[in-house]
């Protein structure tokens, strides 16, 4: 087997080394494009005191929401967490800490983490509670705040197709935060619907180059729909 071959055969192998107190970055927007089975494996492993970075925290009983049931998450960094009664209860109890980050800032902080940019300035959040404690600076007469990069011990990613070198493409809007967390993980684990041989994907159409990917696993997905809206 080549060292470039990122395939692992079990979810246990996929998250080997994940421990208490670590930071986990998760792809997905709402329930779209979430690494369902990797989340389930985090639950199975019963690791605790996790810091989880994800745009949302799933819903009761699905997505990252399942990690709340056994109180595995200590801190959540997210932009929107409003769909989850258990989340609300743990937050009000003080069992759970939340750092709210504007969605675009969250995306950029992850990209920055992956790209070796420790910090950047953005106008987003200036003059709001998000700016508290952050440096404010003027550029060309406009106000900006300094935001820091995010990096995780593990990144968990849901792709569509990948070759076994870990080159990944995403399907439709299931792309969302997935390529960004893939860049920012010390160990990046990708689960996909299909694994093909290197050479089968067009090189200039790859969303996540294999250099960012450490482990790759083939999964089966429920893909639950959060808001089913149909044309009248």
């Amino acid at each position, binding site marked *: 087997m080549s060292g470039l071959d990122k395939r692992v055969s079990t979810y246990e192998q996929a998250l080997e080394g994940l421990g208490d107190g670590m930071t986990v970055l998760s792809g997905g927007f709402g329930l779209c494009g979430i690494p369902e089975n990797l989340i389930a494996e985090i639950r199975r492993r019963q690791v605790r005191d996790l810091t989880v970075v994800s745009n949302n925290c799933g819903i009761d009983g699905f997505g990252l929401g399942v990690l709340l049931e056994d109180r595995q998450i200590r801190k959540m960094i*997210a*932009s929107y967490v409003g769909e989850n009664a258990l989340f609300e209860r743990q937050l009000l109890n003080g069992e759970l800490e939340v750092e709210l980050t504007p969605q*675009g800032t969250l995306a950029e902080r992850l990209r920055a983490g992956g790209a070796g940019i420790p910090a950047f300035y953005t106008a987003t959040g200036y003059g709001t509670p998000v700016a508290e404690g952050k440096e404010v600076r003027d550029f060309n007469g406009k106000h900006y705040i300094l935001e820091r990069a995010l990096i995780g011990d593990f990144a968990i990613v849901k792709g569509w197709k990948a070759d076994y070198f870990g080159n990944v493409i995403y399907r439709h*809007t299931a*792309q969302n935060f997935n390529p960004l967390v893939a860049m920012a993980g010390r160990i990046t684990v990708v689960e996909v619907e299909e694994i093909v041989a290197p050479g089968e994907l067009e090189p200039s159409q790859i969303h996540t180059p294999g250099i960012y990917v450490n482990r790759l696993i083939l999964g089966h997905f429920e893909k639950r729909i959060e808001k089913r*809206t149909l044309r009248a």
Partner: protein
Amino acid sequence: MTLSREQMAQRVARELQDGYYVNLGIGIPTLVANYVPEGIDVMLQSENGLLGMGEFPAEAELDADMINAGKQTVTARPGASIFDSAESFAMIRGGHVDLTVLGAFEVDVEGNIASWMIPGKLIKGMGGAMDLVAGAENIIVIMTHAAKDGASKLLPRCSLPLTGAGCIRRVLTDLAYLEIENGAFVLKERAPGVSVEEIVAKTAGKLIVPEHVPEMTF
């Protein structure tokens, strides 16, 4: 008569120009898409990573991997593009979106907007709203002019934690269309049958009333 939700959407839709890239927030702003004027084509940006949002899907097209920023299943129109969240907010933060329409709790005479957090109530998060208001040059806020208890939402200074500072210039309420200039709301149009006096009474922030304030027509 106060404007209906549909009329509010319809009025805002008149601000669309052919070729605009537009981000429509959740709620009434979403309805704007139903009133795009004849002969005008716009591309709708959904901040989860879709430019060129189409209609809701037919049953056969339903796809868990194709949603909008409201997490509703949607379709992509011909000529759409799909990308990651960093690229999506590069567009937004970089000022490439021509028009942003979103709701708010409060707006004030300095162009401040509060739309995401009511202290004492559960904080759900700002999502993309802070990026949208900070990045756009051209924003229209849609909201009711006053709360149910009659309290004005057009204030001298927002009382709630801000979503963005000094970034709003245009507000459409159920009573009026106003612009914010030099520390005041300027009354530009009123809803059909709504008197200037009612608008004055329900506007807490400094309000400039020009000699002639046309009524909107629908």
